[in-house]
């Protein structure tokens, strides 16, 4: 765990949403993430690419709290120690994530799914359950429904949605709490071209100066299309960092990843 | 379709709830019903299950001779599945729905305690064929077997006599429930009051009902025996399948009846079925009937059982007969005699006919009921395990003993 002193010091610039330093994750001796240092800034879309097993999803798992790292620091807004935070507190601090496979609640309607993402009383589950569900919540749900363009199917059970719609719905659930760090794990996997275009547009709509978007995606073209900055990971390490053009011209990247 | 199946389900349950109402009292027809409450599944099935067939055999005998009060006996069998509350439930079913004139049932005290409120609130009769801890005397239960004072104590007296080996130290090992605990409490009082034996001469251990691994405990018995002092014995009150498991371990650890004899208070012939009894020769038990009881009447009973088993494909051995079987058999006959004497199946009248009823029991004794209580006066046998998975008779009481329901030693 990070010492209090470290939390007080400044890491990165005022623009830095996430500060990741020397992050190491091990599974039975296998280093999935190896001393990774990475900065994610507000206002942009930061893509992470890399071959299978590079550790991209694991990084997200650590930030979300699903996986505990062996060592390293993850700071939010340069002050909040994310790793020490309780899993459910991270959402309250504005960290939201869409999983790789669409994780929506298939037995609930689209509207109910999104409503789960809205919290009127973030501090008390009891109050949320007893008093939540007022007009403010409904308004927010409608707002999100419009953003992700699923208003037409708002009352359908999520299980009946098409694959692409489920992806958007999950983004919507996360979006409902207006996250400051939005992590998207392969949002366009398995999508048709039209759906992909719609997703790209959605991402542009989500862009905001108060929000950092972290995108893990296999589809290089898509990453290039939407990202401001791209990091390349390989075997748990950061290989290259920069714009899409910069990293694609990096000889090391070409060797391990593109030129395979 | 969904809805239809649902409605059907509701319909079935509705029918199930209301149908029993039309069953009329059994003795309005030309048969009279009696009920059986013995488990044919679960932990007690092996020993208890055979009693169902004994009731049927006895009923068959009575029916061949014209029935009771001119009516044929019809036996209603249940399966409480070794589940104590279910005995109560099914007893209620037998009494209130089947309108049985009497019920024969229960092995463990726990099951009897579950049926007790049922027979009492309905003023019905339960014939209980097991020897047990006593301390109970219900007007609605006929105790076909003996309370401890007239069953356990004679055996103890024998073991403590010169002829029995002068036991003065006791290892009490029992299943953890009321029968073993009460027996042991009575024994401790008995030893203290009658022999002045101090508490350091005994050790008491209880295992859960159904306990199977006796390795450590048998080893502990060995230690107890090797400690200084006089002749030790084991007073064994484990029940059910713990009995053969215990003896198997006793054999394996090589303790013989000469070193530390075992008085197995619930051990019957059936418990020895799966065992090589050669190394067990000499261990003792104590019942109101043993298969080797001398006399023509026993032979007749054994023959009747064997042919009943063979004719009806009964899933129990034709050549093994145990006390609770005979007690159950006695019970059916004694109930029939009481009903004949009363000229009625009504419980109060049948009950008032009890005093003086006497039955020629296969054990060789003429067992009887008196006006004192509902305990049957029976003889006592002490048996010693022989090589043929049976018991030789070591001692038997000259006459039937007077049952003492409440022990003076607690």
């Amino acid at each position: 765990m990070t010492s209090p002193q470290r939390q007080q010091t400044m890491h990165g610039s005022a623009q830095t949403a996430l500060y990741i330093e020397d992050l190491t994750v091990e599974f039975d001796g296998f280093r999935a993430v190896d001393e990774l240092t990475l900065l994610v800034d507000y206002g942009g879309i930061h893509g992470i690419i890399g071959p299978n097993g590079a550790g991209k999803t694991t990084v997200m798992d650590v930030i979300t709290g699903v996986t505990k790292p062996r060592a390293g620091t993850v700071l939010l807004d340069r002050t909040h120690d994310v790793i020490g935070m309780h899993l459910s507190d991270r959402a309250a601090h504005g960290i939201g994530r869409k999983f790789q496979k669409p994780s929506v609640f298939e037995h609930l309607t689209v509207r109910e799914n999104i409503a789960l993402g809205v919290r009127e009383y973030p501090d008390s589950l009891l109050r949320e359950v007893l008093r939540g569900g007022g007009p403010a919540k409904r308004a927010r749900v409608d707002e999100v429904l419009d953003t992700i363009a699923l208003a037409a199917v708002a009352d359908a059970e999520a299980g009946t949605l098409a694959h692409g719609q489920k992806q958007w719905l999950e983004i919507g659930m996360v979006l409902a709490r207006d996250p400051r760090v939005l992590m998207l794990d392969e949002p366009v996997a398995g999508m048709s071209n039209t759906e992909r275009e719609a997703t790209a547009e959605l991402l542009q709509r989500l862009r905001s100066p108060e929000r950092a978007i972290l995108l893990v995606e296999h589809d290089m073209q898509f990453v290039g299309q939407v990202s401001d900055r791209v990091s390349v990971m390989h075997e748990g390490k950061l290989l290259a960092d920069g714009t899409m053009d910069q990293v694609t011209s990096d000889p090391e990247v070409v060797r391990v990843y593109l030129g395979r | 379709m969904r809805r239809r199946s649902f409605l059907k389900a509701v319909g079935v349950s509705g029918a199930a709830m209301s149908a029993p109402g039309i069953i009329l009292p059994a003795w309005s027809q030309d048969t009279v019903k009696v009920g059986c409450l013995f488990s044919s599944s679960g932990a007690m099935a092996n020993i208890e299950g055979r009693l169902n067939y004994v009731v049927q055999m006895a009923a068959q005998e009575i029916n061949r001779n014209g029935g009771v009060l001119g009516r044929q006996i019809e036996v209603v069998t249940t399966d409480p599945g070794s589940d104590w509350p279910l005995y109560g439930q099914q007893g209620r079913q037998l009494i209130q729905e089947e309108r049985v004139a009497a019920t024969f049932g229960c092995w463990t005290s726990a099951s009897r305690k579950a049926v007790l409120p049922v027979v009492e609130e309905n003023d019905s009769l339960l014939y209980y064929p097991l020897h047990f801890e006593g301390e109970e005397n219900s007007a609605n239960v006929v105790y076909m077997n003996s309370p401890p004072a007239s069953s356990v104590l004679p055996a103890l007296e024998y073991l403590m006599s010169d002829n029995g080996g002068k036991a003065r130290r006791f290892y009490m090992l029992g299943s953890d429930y009321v029968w073993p605990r009460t027996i042991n409490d009575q024994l401790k009082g008995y030893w203290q009051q009658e022999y002045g034996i101090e508490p350091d001469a005994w050790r008491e251990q209880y295992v859960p009902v159904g306990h199977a691994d006796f390795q450590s405990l048998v080893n502990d018995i060995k230690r107890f025996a090797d400690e200084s002092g006089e002749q030790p014995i084991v007073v064994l009150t484990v029940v059910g399948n713990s009995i053969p498991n215990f003896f198997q371990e006793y054999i394996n650890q090589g303790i013989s009846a000469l070193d530390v004899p075992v008085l197995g208070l619930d051990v019957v012939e059936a418990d020895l079925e799966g065992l090589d009894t050669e190394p067990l020769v000499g261990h003792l038990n104590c019942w109101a009937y043993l298969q080797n009881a001398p006399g023509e009447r026993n032979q007749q009973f054994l023959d009747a059982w064997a042919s009943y088993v063979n004719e009806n494909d009964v899933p129990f051995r034709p050549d093994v007969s145990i006390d609770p079987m005979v007690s159950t058999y006695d019970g059916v006959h004694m109930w029939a005699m009481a009903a004949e004497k009363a000229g009625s199946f009504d419980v109060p009248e049948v009950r008032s006919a009890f005093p003086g009823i006497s039955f020629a029991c296969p054990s060789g004794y003429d067992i009887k009921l008196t006006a004192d209580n509902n305990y049957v006066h029976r003889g006592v046998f002490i048996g010693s395990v022989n090589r043929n998975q049976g018991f030789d008779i070591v001692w038997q009481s000259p006459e039937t003993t007077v049952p003492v329901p409440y022990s003076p030693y607690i």
Partner: protein
Amino acid sequence: MRAGKIVLCLLLLVLATFVPVQAADIDRQGLVGIWCAGDDAERRDSFAAMLSQVESADEPTRQWVQSVLSAYREGDLFCTAETAFRPAGEAYENVLTGERVDALPADANAPFLNIPLRRALEPVSRAVTLVVSPEAAERLGAADGLSRSLGVVPPALIEELYATEPDARVRSALEQVLVGVWLASGDPADQQRAIAALAADPTRQNLTTLERFVDGAEGSLSPSVEAAADEALSKVKLTVQASDILTVLYHGLSYGSVLFLAALGLAVIFGLMGVINLAQAEFVMIGAYVTWFVQEALKVVAPDLLDAYIFIAIPFAFLGPALVGVLMEWGVVRHLYHRPLLTLLATWAVSLLLINIVRVSIGTQNLSFYTPEYLKSGFTVFSEFAITWTRLLSIFFAALALVGTLFVLYRTRFGLRVRATTQNRRMSGCVGVSTRRTDSMAFAFGSGLAGIAGLALSNIYNVNPTMGTSLIIDSFIVVVVGGVGSVLGTAVAALGIGELNAFIEPQYGAVASKVIVLLAVILFIQQKPNGLFPPKGRR
């Protein structure tokens, strides 16, 4: 009381030396008459009298006494009004006339020997063997048995035999018999000898003897004897304590091996498919039943091989349950792989079904198993630490199952497929492993292992339809503690729980030990939710 008897016998012996017995020959008819029909006191007296005569009797009489005595002891002496018979091969021999009959007379029956009579007879018959037998091994057995109780056997006779005994082992066994006499003699030299003999055989019984000697002789001992006694006492005490600890450890090991056998198949199936098979305990039961069928078949087909039935049954006890396992996997489990909670209920239903099929078709009675001679009782390692053969056999089977399972999993193609599927089901499917067939075979394998457990348990526990129910929760606990699907973890957990149980049970009783073990396990799961040996890889 016993001491009184000894004094009485000594008196008799003294009398006997004063009144020389002219006719050393034994009154055979009188003896048989008393043995068959005398009351208890007459019979007991006759034993002592016979013993005093047998020493001086001629060889045929000695042989006669020994054979009739052993028949009597075994309950094989069948009395009639005039004489008695003993079995001789297929026929019976009239012990008085020596004539043979094919069948016993109708009125022949073996007289019942109560415990005091048998206690009196036992030492006498041993003493007779000591006097009569030319075989050192037989004499050794007899001498060993005598150390428990001399009964009516005069100590002087044993001292005499001790003085003339040529075999060293028999002599040292006789020393154990004589310690009581020596200690009581008051002669420091004898007492020293006795103490040395007691120290040489550090059993709890000898510990008790020593303690009683030291306590009872308060201050009346010579200093050297007292010092020797104290030294011997502390040595014997230490040895007995050490053997007690080893005994508990061994009990833990043997109980642990039972747990391991019951849990192993469960662990394999659970590890591979995430399926908890509540019918696993019933496969144990089926294994035991198959063993019984093999035994019964051998009785008919090849009675000579009956002694080896346990080993002959191994493949059958494996294949029988394995077959049932395949059927169950095919009919039930494979439809439920992704609904583990429902599998729990479905396998419970199967267990109920199996129990009741066996109950209805075979019955609820305990099955009778033949115990081969080599499995009866056991041997003493040292002091109180004794090993029984049946328990050792179950440990052997547990070791066999452990090694066999490790071999199958790590050295065969099937094992490779199982491990691959356990680690990554989808990937294995992609690289051409038929996960369906692997599941089916692994289920069969796990079921077969349970069958082996049933085989191993058939000589320890009762075999009946519900024999498994008491095992099932214990084996789950083992699997949970061991870690999903880890064979080694299962072994370590079974051993640990077995030992824990063995240490608690003698102190606090069987109920408490179960409760404490379960609570310990629940707390353990708090610390290590995935067991001792958590599954490898990411989940």
